[in-house]
C-alpha cells in the first residue's frame, strides 16, 4: 500500500543539504523537526501544492496537488486537514464561524447540519465556551483548539500540522494530539498525521511512531522516547 503522504528528493533550506525523502505510512503519526532555516516550515506548503519545491516532489494520496488544475486542486485539498503555523484563523470571524467556514463553502450539507457538526467539533476540542469570540479576543490555546477543529472539519484521513504545540501546556498538547488522531484502529491512529516544527513536548514524543530531525546530512530518525 502506498503512503498517504510522501516527499521524494525535495530540496529544503540551503543548497548544500541532502534532498529530503520521507513516506508517512497510513495510520502513523510522524514528526519532522528542524531549525528555522532547515526548511521544515515549507513541508506543509509543498504537500498541499501551495508552493512548489525547487527540486523533487510531494505527493498526497499519490497525487501531486500542485499539478492539478485550479478547481480540482482546491477540491483535493479538502481531503487533507491543515493547521498552519500561526493558525491562519480569519480575524473578522468568530471561532465558531472559522470552524464552519470550510464546511459552509465546501460541502452541500444543509445549514442546520453544518451548525450541528460545528457544535460537536467545538465541544470535542473544548472551546465551545469561547466559540463566539473573535481570534483576537481568544487566548492562544483557544485559538489553537479552534484551528484544529477547523483542520479536521471534513474528517480528513490525513492531517498536516505546523508547530501545533508551541505555547501549549503538555496536557493541552497531549489532549489535542489525541483528538487529531481521531481514535485508534488495529493499525494505529485512525488518521495519518505529519507534524512539523522545531521541538516537541516530551509527552508528545511518546505518542509519535517516528520522529526525524533535519540536518545538513539529511533527515535523521530519532530514537523512540
Amino acid at each position, binding site marked *: 500500500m502506498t503512503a498517504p503522504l510522501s516527499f521524494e528528493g525535495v530540496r529544503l533550506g540551503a543548497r548544500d543539504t541532502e534532498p529530503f525523502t520521507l513516506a508517512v505510512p497510513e495510520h502513523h503519526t510522524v514528526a519532522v523537526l528542524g531549525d528555522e532555516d532547515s526548511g521544515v516550515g515549507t513541508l506543509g506548503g509543498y504537500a498541499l501544492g501551495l508552493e512548489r519545491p525547487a527540486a523533487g516532489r510531494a505527493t498526497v494520496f499519490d497525487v501531486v496537488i500542485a499539478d492539478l488544475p485550479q478547481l480540482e486542486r482546491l477540491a483535493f485539498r*479538502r481531503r487533507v486537514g*491543515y493547521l498552519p503555523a500561526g493558525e491562519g484563523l480569519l480575524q473578522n470571524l468568530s471561532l465558531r464561524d472559522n470552524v464552519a467556514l*470550510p464546511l459552509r463553502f465546501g460541502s452541500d450539507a444543509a445549514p442546520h447540519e453544518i451548525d450541528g457538526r460545528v457544535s460537536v467539533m467545538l465541544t470535542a476540542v473544548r472551546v465551545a465556551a469561547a466559540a463566539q469570540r473573535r481570534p483576537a479576543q481568544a487566548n492562544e490555546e483557544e485559538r489553537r483548539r479552534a484551528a484544529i477543529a477547523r483542520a479536521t472539519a471534513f474528517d480528513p484521513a490525513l492531517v498536516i500540522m505546523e508547530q501545533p504545540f508551541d505555547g501549549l501546556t503538555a496536557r493541552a498538547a497531549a489532549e489535542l494530539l489525541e483528538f487529531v488522531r481521531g481514535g485508534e484502529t488495529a493499525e494505529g491512529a485512525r488518521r495519518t498525521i505529519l507534524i512539523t516544527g522545531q521541538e516537541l513536548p516530551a509527552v508528545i514524543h511518546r505518542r509519535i511512531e517516528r520522529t526525524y530531525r533535519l540536518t545538513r546530512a539529511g533527515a535523521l530518525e530519532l530514537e523512540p522516547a
Partner: protein
Amino acid sequence: MIDAISKLGRSAARRLSRLGALARFGFHALRAAPALTPAGRRVALRVALTQVRFTALNAVGLVVLLSSILSFLVISQAVREFGRLGVTDLIGTLMVIAIVRELGPLITALAVAGRSGTAIAAELATNQVLGEVRALEAMGIDPKQYLVLPRFAGSVVSMFALLVVFDVVAIGAGFVAATFNHMAGDRYAQIVLQSLTARDVWLTVAKALATGVIVGIVPSYFGLSVRRAPTEIPVATSRATVTSIVGIFLSCALLR
C-alpha cells in the same frame, strides 16, 4: 538626456505592466464567479451583503451631507445669478449635467474609495500578512471567490445605491435652495425634469458601474499583492487609494 528618456520609459512600462496585472486580476476574479458552488454562493452572498452594509448603508449619512451641501450651494448661487441674467431655465441643465451626471458619480465614487476602498485594501493586506489567504487556499477555498468577488459585487451595488441617494438628495436640496431664493418650487421641478434625458440616466448608470468596478477591484488587487511584512499594509492602502482616485477621474472623464 538618454538617461532621462530611459527612466521615463521604464516608469511608463512599469505603470502599463501594473495596469495589465490589474486587468488580469479583475478578469480572473470575474472568471471565478461561475465556478462557485451553491454552498460557496451562499457564503459569498453573505460576505457581499456585509460589504453592502458597510459600503452603502453606513455611508448614506456622508453622501446625504455632501450631496445636500453641494446642491444647495450651487443652486442658491445659480438662482440669483441666472435670475439677474434672465436665464433661470438653465438651472435645470446645471442640475442635470453638472450635479446629477458629472459631480454625482465623481463625488460618490471618491467618498466610497476613501471610505471603503481603503478599508478593503487594508483588510485584504492584513489577511495576507497574517497567513489567512494561504489558510483559505489550504482549506480548498479560492480567495478570489471568498474575498474578492463579494467585495467587488458589494462595491458595484453600493455605488448604484449611493448614486441614487446622491441624485435624489441633490434634486431635493436644489428644490429647497430654489424656494429659499424666491423661485417657485413647481417651476424648479418642471425645468429640472425637462432637462433630464434618457442619455443622462444611462451615462450616470455607466459611471456608477465603472467606478463601482474600480472601487471593488483596485483595492483588492493592492491588498492581496502584499507579501509578509506588516509595513507593506499602509503602502498597499495608499497605492490603492491613489490608483482608485486616478481611475475614477479617468472613467468619469471618458464617459461623456
